[in-house]
């Protein structure tokens, strides 16, 4: 689709336009792109704010939850006045305020085996900003099956980890983590805590990966897991390989359709 930037867009996105890796062509790609952010919490807040500001034309937001006062320590898209409001609704208002020309598609639901593929297929890139293993594995499997690239993100206490997955081209989350850990073997942020700013550190990395994927700038965080410890500010990137025996993206996959069994294994059902 041919498209020219308006004068206002030239002003709004001027700092992108002077980057040679983005420029007008990259900005037009951003304006025409569709990104799905799953979870409008600690990671989804910074991710969606930066994507909206960057001019990602359509942002889908998935969350069935409402804003709780305990979210406000890190979920910076929501304010005290938003308590009890659906998170997707609260987030949509802020994103439109930053950038009225983008479109927000709110999905007031949780992803499950029955709806994930239909929703994910409508987008160019997916951000995993969820807070449980069942949905993290579900997003991985759905993105691999649908062939939609995505960014995995996880945070706990002072730590964060992220990887970018290009389905069937680079290592997926299951290539590394295989299957969800048994219920209760790994604590959640509500059990173990999370430094609010760590969500911002990791979320902005995920947003940058989405913007790089869409514009084609730089090289992606594929075939590797980036982790950091904010206590020491040590960052480490571990190389990963796409596994031929991966249960979802390998040569003889055992996962050929989605199921909610992981939700049961994780004690969510």
């Amino acid at each position, binding site marked *: 689709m041919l498209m020219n930037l308006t004068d206002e867009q030239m002003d709004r996105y001027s700092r992108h336009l002077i980057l040679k890796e983005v420029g007008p062509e990259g900005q037009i790609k951003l304006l025409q792109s569709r990104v799905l952010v799953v*979870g409008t*919490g*600690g*990671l*989804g807040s910074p991710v969606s704010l930066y994507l909206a500001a960057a001019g990602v034309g359509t942002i889908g937001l998935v969350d069935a939850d409402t804003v709780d006062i305990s979210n406000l320590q890190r979920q910076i898209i929501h304010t005290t006045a938003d308590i009890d409001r659906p998170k997707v609704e609260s987030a949509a208002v802020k994103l439109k305020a930053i950038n009225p020309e983008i479109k927000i598609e709110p999905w007031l639901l949780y992803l499950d085996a029955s709806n994930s593929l239909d929703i994910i297929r409508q987008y160019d890139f997916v951000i*995993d*900003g*969820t*807070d*449980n*293993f069942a949905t*993290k594995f579900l997003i991985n499997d759905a993105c691999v099956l649908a062939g939609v690239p995505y960014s995995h*993100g*996880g*945070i*706990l206490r002072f*730590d*964060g*980890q992220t990887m970018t997955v290009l389905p069937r081209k680079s290592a997926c989350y299951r*290539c*590394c*983590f*295989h*299957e969800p*850990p*048994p219920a209760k*073997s*790994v604590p*959640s*942020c509500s059990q173990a805590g*999370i430094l609010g700013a760590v*969500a911002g550190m990791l979320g902005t990395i995920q947003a940058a990966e989405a913007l790089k994927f869409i514009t084609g700038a730089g090289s992606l965080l594929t075939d590797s*897991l980036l*982790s950091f410890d904010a206590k020491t500010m040590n960052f*480490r990137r*571990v*190389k*990963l*390989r796409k*596994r031929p025996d991966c249960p979802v993206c390998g040569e003889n996959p055992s996962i050929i359709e989605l199921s909610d069994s992981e939700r049961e294994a994780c004690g969510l059902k």
Partner: protein
Amino acid sequence: MEIRLNGESRCINAAHLTVAGLLEMEQVPSPEMVAVQIDGEIVHRCAYNDTMVGDRNQVDLLYFMAGG
């Protein structure tokens, strides 16, 4: 023997060490909390007791993180 654990050199005072033994030595509270990669290959969780860590192996302990 000497291994590289999470990118750092580590002397191990043992001739034989399993992945399970290493996790215990590293005080990983539960072996189910990590994915273990040795020289670029992920070790399956059910093989931690049977997989040996060898001299000069590069071992990465990759923690599961669910938060978002």
